[in-house]
């Protein structure tokens, strides 16, 4: 009965996590653990709202969000690759810095705090024609698909191909695996890492745009609500492989979605919220222990 609706909302809740995780996993394949996804999502959401209102175009808004976050990502990458900053601390610092800058802009430019409403924000449209809704079970989910969700899933399914079959994909994997080898064969490993972080920024920006424009049409300081870290958990859980990571995102989106049911069944909301992290921890332990067993044999 409600399967359709669960499907719809799981899909929508998954999209921002998925977009951020796509960026994060590519970044990590190139050897950078991106703790700053949260910051880039937030700035993406902000830019998306401003631009959507100004241009009346969801497309330009998403593009602007993605590009601005890509630039932030690229600059962030420079501190890591060129100035040898520790990526974890720099990422945490970026999260604080971006939140501070956005708060500042909100209060000084827009004379508001926390929430920014702009007139005539254009939301993401439903893409597929209405008759899709008639398809049983998955119909409603299909008909509520927005362009970013479609883009995210297309990317997920293209990504394995891109990573295995294109030059840049090979370079990224080689850089993450053995940067000295990449350099030895004449590739610019640092530039490849920078590009991957910019890519992560691009997708985190889209994730932010989705949060802001999927249904709300406004910016809020708490909009990302730790989804950057959930994305991190997802690509750790999926071990940087696109399909597996996407499945982890779906699982986390589903968990988020079923909170209400679990809450009525007596689970405290706080403890439900920690499941992704617990799962990553357990997965990490499991794989490490298994790897060691294997090595000992």
């Amino acid at each position, binding site marked *: 009965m409600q399967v359709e609706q669960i499907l719809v909302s799981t899909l929508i809740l998954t999209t921002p996590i998925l977009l951020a995780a796509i960026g994060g996993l590519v970044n990590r394949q190139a050897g950078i653990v991106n703790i700053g996804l949260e910051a880039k999502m937030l700035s993406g959401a902000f830019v998306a709202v401003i631009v959507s209102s100004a241009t009346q175009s969801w497309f330009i808004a998403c593009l602007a969000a993605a590009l601005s976050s890509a630039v932030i990502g690229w600059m962030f990458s420079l501190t890591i690759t060129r100035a040898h900053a520790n990526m974890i601390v720099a990422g945490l610092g970026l999260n604080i810095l971006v939140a501070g800058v956005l708060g500042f802009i909100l209060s000084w430019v827009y004379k508001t705090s926390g929430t920014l409403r702009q007139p005539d924000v254009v939301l993401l449209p439903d893409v597929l024609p209405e008759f899709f809704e008639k398809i049983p079970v998955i119909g409603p989910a299909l008909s509520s698909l927005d362009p970013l969700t479609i883009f995210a899933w297309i990317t997920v399914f293209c990504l394995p191909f891109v990573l295995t079959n294109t*030059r840049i994909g*090979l370079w990224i*994997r080689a850089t993450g*695996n*053995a940067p000295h080898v990449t350099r*030895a*064969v*004449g590739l610019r490993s640092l530039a490849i890492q920078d590009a991957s972080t910019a890519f992560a920024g691009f997708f985190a920006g889209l994730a932010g745009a989705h949060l802001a424009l999927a249904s709300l049409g406004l910016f809020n300081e708490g909009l990302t609500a730790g989804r950057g870290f959930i994305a991190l958990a997802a690509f750790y859980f999926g071990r940087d492989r696109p399909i597996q990571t996407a499945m982890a995102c779906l699982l986390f989106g589903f968990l988020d979605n079923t909170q209400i049911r679990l809450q009525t069944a007596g689970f405290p909301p706080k403890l439900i919220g920690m499941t992704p992290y617990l799962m990553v921890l357990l997965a990490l332990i499991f794989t490490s222990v298994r790897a060691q067993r294997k090595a000992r044999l």
Partner: protein
Amino acid sequence: MFPAKDTPTSLSNNNQERVVFPRAPDFSHAREAIVLSTDRSVALGAVDLHKSYGATKANRGISLSVMRGEIHAIVGENGAGKSTLMRMLQGVERPDSGHVVIADKPVVLNGPAEALALSIGMVHQEFMLAPDLTLLENLVLGEEPVTRQLGPLSRIDWAKALREGQGLAESIGAQIDWQRRTSSVPVHILQFVEIIRLLRRGCNVLILDEPTAVLAPPQVEELFDLLRNLRANGTTILFISHKIGEVMALADQVTVIRQGKTVFHSTIAETTGPEIASHIVRDAPPLETSPPPSRTVTGEPVLELDGLSARSLEKSQSLDNISLQVRAGEILGIAGVSGNGQGELAECIAGLRDTSAGNIILQGADITGETTLARRNRGLAYVSADRRHEGLTTAASIETNVIAGSHRAPPITRGGILSRKNLRQEASKRLAALKVVFGKVTDPADSLSGGNQQKLVFARESADNPKLMIASQPTRGVDLNGIAAIHGLLRDFRDQGGAVLLASEELDELIALSDRVVVIFEGRLVGEVTSPAGAMAQIGQMMVQGDAA
């Protein structure tokens, strides 16, 4: 850096325009120095190369000509200047004077990419392969065949890549499963992949730096077959080795380097193993001669190994049923070609590597399962072969380095408190006792010369009156004065009743110091020589062939 995809032709033109010689180049003598045979051209050569690092003169006049289509071996001891020569041939470093010759022309190289563009490729001992990628991916990395040119987004033409790989592998007679993950592939196959990668990039001159060091004998055979096939296909090979047997089996030409100079050159047909050997070690630094050959050791056994075995991990050699004894007042030498298990054996005794069978007995006590710390407390000292990464912490201060390991014992630590004053005193005492030359005790160990670094290691390891010293390659990378000092230290230690297990690739050193020598081959002990003096040939035979026949 040059884009790797440029063609060699355009690059060499390009290159000639950019050639800048530090000094006015004088190539007038180049032809005569190089050309030994006029009917064939020089693929790769060197004219009177000099290179110094500070006070160390690594190369002091090296000339070399590798003829096209030949396998040319360069032999020499460790520290003779081979690796410096390689770096200059490959463009990693520039000679102070002299020049490199490629395809009959003197060139100035500004990096390995330029050498590569001139068809010179090098296979290092550390393979440049990403472990998580497949062999095929490693093969094409950096120069991928694409279906359509779309810049970095171009789709890689895997079918073409595979055809290329298979074609090249076939042409040299190698069997390679290109889809396997690199980390799961045996080491000699990786070497083949490295070679094929260079061929694919258009290299017709290959430099192989001690390629057999990491290989097991059957693998060595496979490699040699492959190299012969390469030669048949017209590839020129420069082969660096210190194993005479291999050189005799494989090479067409041989050049011997000693103390930074070329001292001998011949075609293999016109020389013999012993002759080459004599050039490698002739005029060796005046080391003290070994004790009288009749010296008999009567001390109690300090170390006994009983059927010790260890599994192979990653690239390491396994050990198989090793039994030996080292008595008080005795130096037992372990001879063996690098990679045959000396290092692993030393690590097992020091407690740094797990054993799978057998016992280690130190002064009558079985220490097989004990920690490194417990072993050290029983009087074990260990001089690591890898001084810069295991023997020392180069970033830490000299005093830290010379005290580490004794930091829990009085007088440094009493009642759980570590006394900096006593630490410094003790450090100064130890450093003075071994005449280590240093600036301040708080300077990093990195500031010391190689010889002094090693003396520091001995200062630490000999401080707590050990009963057994395991010295693994103790003079590697140490200058001549340092070598003499370290030999003196080992002798003194022995003369005071200590037991020494000495692993060295320097046969001279083993013979000069050891009371007895055992030979290790593929992780097994294959022979023992009780009076090493004059037994060099016998030991060498066993090292190379695994038996004394």
